[in-house]
């Protein structure tokens, strides 16, 4: 499936789609979107790249095995879940929010970090499954 059109297009599409996935992740708290969908979109971006340029190429772009996203994501989600216990003596999963909105990102709270964890886990899990299957098929 290595057509020249898809190849050329995907070189531009990959960064755009990744940016879009981050956009979906960040808007999630106020508008449709969120970590799960964002993660899926990012995974699709990489899979598209793999279709166009070959799996090896995508792996080189990624530098690390996608599996490593999973523990990192889980750790971020877990830390943000226990952060109220650690920092504020509140029950597990209580949302902590910064008082002043950050430029560009808007209001930042522990929920955003939790969602980022979800985002990373979804990318990691989806890509691990797809890469593994396509390598062994």
């Amino acid at each position, binding site marked *: 499936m290595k057509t020249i059109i898809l190849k050329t297009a995907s070189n531009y599409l990959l960064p755009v789609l990744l940016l879009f996935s981050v956009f979906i992740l960040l808007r999630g*708290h106020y508008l*449709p979107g*969120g970590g799960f969908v964002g993660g*899926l979109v990012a995974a699709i971006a990489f899979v598209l790249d793999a279709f166009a340029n070959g799996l090896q190429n995508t792996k080189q772009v990624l530098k690390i095995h996608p599996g490593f996203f*999973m523990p990192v994501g889980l750790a971020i989600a877990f830390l943000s879940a226990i952060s109220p216990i650690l920092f504020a003596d509140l029950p597990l*999963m209580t949302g902590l929010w910064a008082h002043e909105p950050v430029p560009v990102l808007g209001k930042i709270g522990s929920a955003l970090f939790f969602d980022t964890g*979800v985002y990373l886990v979804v990318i990691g*899990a989806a890509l*691990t499954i797809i890469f593994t299957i396509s390598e062994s098929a």
Partner: protein
Amino acid sequence: MLEAVLVGFIFAILLVFVGRWFRGPIAVVSALIPIGLFVYFLWHIGGISAGDVIYESYRWIPSFGVNLSFKLDGLSLLFSLMITGVGSLVFLYTAAYLKGHKYLDRFYGYLSLFMAAMLGLVLSDNLISMFVFWELTSISSFFLIGFNNDSKASRQSALVALGITGLGGLLLLGGALLLGFISGTYEISEMLTQSDVITQHPYYALAAILMFGAAFTKSAQFPFHFWLPGAMKAPTPVSTYLHSATMVKAGVYLLFRFSPVLGQTELWHTTLISIGAITMLYSAIHIIFRTDLKGILAYSTISALGILVFLIGIGTEAALIAASVFIVVHALYKASLFLITGIIDHETGTRDITKLTGLRKVLLPVAIAGFIAALISGGVPPSIGFVGKDLIYEATLHSNNAVLLTVLAIATNALLFYGGFVAGVKPFMGQLPKKFEKIHLPSPLMWLPPLIMVTAGIIFGIAPGLVETTFAQPIVNVMFTSAEDVHLKLWHGFNLVLGLSALTLAVGTILYFLLKPTHQKETFISQFNFIAPKDLTLKLSDGFEWFGHIWTGYFQNGYLRHYLSIVVGFIILLLGYLLLFDFDLDIDYASLARITVYEIAIVLMMVIAIIFTVFTKSRLAAVAAMGVVGFAFSLFFLFYSAPDLAMTQFSVDTLTVILFVLVLYKLPTYLKLTNDKIRIKHGILSLSLGGLITILILKVLNEPKNTEITDFYAENAYKLAHGKNIVNVILVDFRGIDTMIEISVLVVAALGVFGLLKLRLKTKDKK
């Protein structure tokens, strides 16, 4: 007290990291832990015998009433002293017995894990934490029995023991939950005040039977006794410590602890007396047929445990005094005999009683210890055993069924006398065979512990007041609110009890000189193995395995379509059954939204795609058509204002199609693998599931709507969680724990796929 329980756990965990430096002679240092704890508990004797009760409580899961509460009273003090006292000697003994063993550190780790769990068990005042410690003792016992893990027999015995005691653990959990339900608390001391409520409750019998099951499995009562002789595969220090002195007494402890709560009923007395009596006599008779020293000791241990259950069943004050003294007696002589057996085994390499003679000439201090241990075991004055035996007769004589119970007790005691002398005296008498002449006395670390214990047995016998003030009186105070004073004496004057005692000694002596342990006897009794509880249980487990094989073979045959058919078929059965009795299709069509033209167009598209999927000849075309169905679905979500769902459905479908393509890409283009019959079957299954789900959803619309939850989220999403997208707020905040677990599941699934496929690749490479 928490520190006392924790120190063993901490030491065991520490050994994981520093174990490799602990295999040498330095291992003996670990004995400082039980010795220190022993001193700690000794130090409490004064207070406890003066009537103090030390209570400590730490919150664990207060919302479920589960706390780490510990109570040190007369009963738990006796057990704690036994655990740490015998523990100290066993720790010392092990240093010499397993000297240079390459897993010595591991052994000490298991031992101290066990000691900590056992201490936790007897000190716990909360039934749930007691259950946790109870299970920990079973698990450490499993590791210790299977310590020689390259022997198949050891591994099997460990499994049998874990199976039986694990079953008991489950029963204990059931009993604990039921008692908690009846009394509204898991604290044992609070249950004590509600004894009347509990014994009058309709579930009393069930609760009592569950507790009996727990105690009988742990304390090796008939018909669950058979794991204990098997557990003798463990190294001798383990048999000494776990399977004679402490762990097997956990069941007895449980019955002791709960006799003020559950006792004094007909069920309690009848069950405990009959099971105890059967166990004590059955296994005492088995002693005659054994030639392995540890086998003899195992059966006499079971018999002694039977006596204890029997005495608790009688339940009078005299019986409970007898039981508490007999616990001390048994721990002292049985642990010594086990250690002595260990020395003999270690030096001669055999435990066959028919081959062992004359060892007194080479192992004199051991022979002395063995002789005294036999005296205590047989109840010969002036040992504490004599006091213990008198108390047993005192208890049976004053029970409701005096004659029968006394005769049973005499028969058991005479056989125990025989067993004690065979194990403690016989190996040392007679001529020393040539092959044993070169034996040297081992390190004092090995022969001093039994000697210390039997000396204690004699001292207690001469001065029974020591036992009276330290154990017997405080325990009786725990059991009875208005307890009488306990007076233990070695000499009661000439009376019936003394006569019975003399009779026991006479019968025992005759048995010792008449009966010789031979292999013929052992072969004779093994003919009856097929009706023994052990064989029956093993057969049952084999049968279960066979059944599981058949069952799994049918339901888990590895074909994905088979699994799917079963799951779908089962759902159809359930739903069909439900709808069969409640079938009415009066749907309020007016309440449904109006159907628009573009909806009809999309449904048409889906139907065409489905028909194409079913009848196409190409795999890839089928997958693409399935994708069309999925995308059409996400359009529906969009129409009904669920953009989140639409987005997710769209992405998931994209990835699914890609996955399918990846898997199917390399397969040959469609072959007709299934015949029409199967295709029709699958078609009927799919259509009926679809039809049923449709009916179900239409019926759901008829149900009255509960908008309470929706309103709550809508109202509070921004107020509490600063978010305007309710779906996302639910995911990351209100039900964030669910999401946490879901992403963990996702990780597990990905790792599973990765592991399965990579593993398969590797085996392929090897070929």
